[in-house]
């Protein structure tokens, strides 16, 4: 790592903001194209993994699938799922292997346009550059509904970002809000700690961990599902908003879905619709349809995989096709609960994340605060994005998605530099 002593303005062709897998993959591709650059990192490499993940989390993609430009897994457990420590080690090893020019503990405080490019200000001095790559992550801020302010004070509230382990929680009931990847894993772990769990389920996407004897990610990778491009799907704005697959890196490769959770005794209720002034929570009556939508969506994915397997001669090499039993929903799931009754001691908000662009002083955000970009090419010339949901491909937010995106965007960036050379 480089130590910077001067506070005068330095000049570099490209500034990459963020030294996670996406920023590092871009750094490697910029190196390959001989484009001088720095990677600015607010903390240590893989900062988010070091500071904003719960203890037992495992990467939801198998080890073999973490392929970065010039780097891949060569251990003896290709089908396993990395622990948080192993993900940090993997990303740090990558930074070392590619000799990435990372400046750690350098927080970007603002980015503004100049006549020739951008001025990037940090708490460790300023940079003038011609291009900027925003690789600061898609999950900087946990999104919590406004009515969280109505939760009685006696209840401890944590987001999936603050949650570490069940030891943080008092004995007693826990309401987990959200049933995507984070929510189901946290609900499972807290239930196993002996605390009664109520899981509030809105839109989610059910997925079997293993299908026909192979990891679902293997099928999605092989059948080209993960390579689907942003300009090939019907409604990219919607595709980018879709919740993450309900997958978990379970050491025994078991599927963690609503059925698995209700079987062990987790109470499943509908989407949390509101909390009143009196501390009364209301759950939506839409649970049955949320589960039906999810089952149907999963069925379409498995149909697509089966068709691909048949066309490509995999039927003989994989187990026969099968379908999961429909998600079971109680005849009359509870529609409300009194949060002031003392039954619930903690609420975990696993209600999604959003990026933080509050430091970005360039007018590239839409009215919802989303960055306007075309496959990672931001609407402000010379600015690029990396590592967000379905940015260029379905896999763009995965570690495995950074390589293809970085190769293409660094090509675009290089040709931008050529066309706009002084």
């Amino acid at each position: 790592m480089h130590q910077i002593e001067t506070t005068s303005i330095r000049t570099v062709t490209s500034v990459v903001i963020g030294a996670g897998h996406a920023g590092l993959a871009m750094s490697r591709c910029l190196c390959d194209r001989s484009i001088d650059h720095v990677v600015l990192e607010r903390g240590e490499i893989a900062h988010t993994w070091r500071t904003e993940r719960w203890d037992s989390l495992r990467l939801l993609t198998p080890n073999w699938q973490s392929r970065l430009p010039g780097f891949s897994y060569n251990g003896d457990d290709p089908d396993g799922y990395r622990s948080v420590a192993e993900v940090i080690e993997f990303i740090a090893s990558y930074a070392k292997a590619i000799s990435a020019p990372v400046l750690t503990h350098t927080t970007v405080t603002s980015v503004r346009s100049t006549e020739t490019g951008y001025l990037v200000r940090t708490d460790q001095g300023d940079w003038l550059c011609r291009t900027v790559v925003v690789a600061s992550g898609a999950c900087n801020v946990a999104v919590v509904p406004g009515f969280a302010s109505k939760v009685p004070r006696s209840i401890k509230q944590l987001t999936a970002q603050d949650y570490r382990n069940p030891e943080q929680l008092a004995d007693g009931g826990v309401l987990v809000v959200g049933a995507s990847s984070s929510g189901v894993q946290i609900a499972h772990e807290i239930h196993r700690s002996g605390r009664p769990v109520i899981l509030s389920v809105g839109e989610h996407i059910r997925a079997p961990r293993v299908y026909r004897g192979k990891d679902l990610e293997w099928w999605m990778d092989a059948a080209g599902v993960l390579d689907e491009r942003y300009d090939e799907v019907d409604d990219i704005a919607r595709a980018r908003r879709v919740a993450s697959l309900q997958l978990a890196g379970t050491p025994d490769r078991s599927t963690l879905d609503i059925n698995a959770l209700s079987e062990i005794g987790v109470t499943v209720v509908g989407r949390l619709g509101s909390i009143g002034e009196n501390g009364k929570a209301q759950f939506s009556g839409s649970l049955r349809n949320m589960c039906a939508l999810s089952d149907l969506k999963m069925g379409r994915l498995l149909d697509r995989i089966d068709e691909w397997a048949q066309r490509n001669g995999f039927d003989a090499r994989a187990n026969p096709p099968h379908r999961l039993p429909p998600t079971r929903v109680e005849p009359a799931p509870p529609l409300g609960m009194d949060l002031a009754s003392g039954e619930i001691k903690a609420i975990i908000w696993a209600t999604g994340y959003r990026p933080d662009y509050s430091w970005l002083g360039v007018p590239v955000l839409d009215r919802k605060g989303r960055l306007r970009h075309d496959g990672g090419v931001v609407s402000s010339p010379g600015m690029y994005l990396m590592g967000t949901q379905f940015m260029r491909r379905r896999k763009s937010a995965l570690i495995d998605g950074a390589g293809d995106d970085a190769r293409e965007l660094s090509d675009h960036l290089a040709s931008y530099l050529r066309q706009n050379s002084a």
Partner: protein
Amino acid sequence: MADAGSIANNGVNVAALIAAREALTDTPAAAQFKWRAACEWKDGTHSHSTVEGFYGLGQEQHHRRTFTFDADHPEVFASEDKGATPVEYVLVGLASCLTAGIAAVAQHRNIQLRSVTATLEGDMDLQGILGIDDDVRNGFGGIKVTYKIDADAKREDIEALVAQSQKRSAVYDIVTNPTNVTVVVD
């Protein structure tokens, strides 16, 4: 699905709906609508409601004519049964909203519908509205909607139509989620 090349016709102008969606994405103010109804008490439990104007696309709008609705209670409640009960209007609202949605989604997915019929049933324990038991709610304990759909599509695709229609239905949302209701006296 309709055969490759053939285009389903369910009488829904999806192109116009998609154009409206695009236009309203760019002008969120025009997407702000207000729906209205007026109601006048007649006699007993009989009331007469009208629907005529609404607000949207930045200005006052009107239906082609005034629609009227008589509501009453049935004879078993010692009323004169001059119209459907209010709770039956809720069922009508839910059914017609979901059914319109099915037609629109089918058109968008190029699925030709031949017939769509729904029957609805809402369970209600009258001990709630009669104040006999405070633990019983006034409204429906549950609503069951049963569709029979004949269409050029696989069963999964028809189920997906019905699921998507629920996901995008205003009345389904109104009955499954809480809404702030303010009633004032002028």
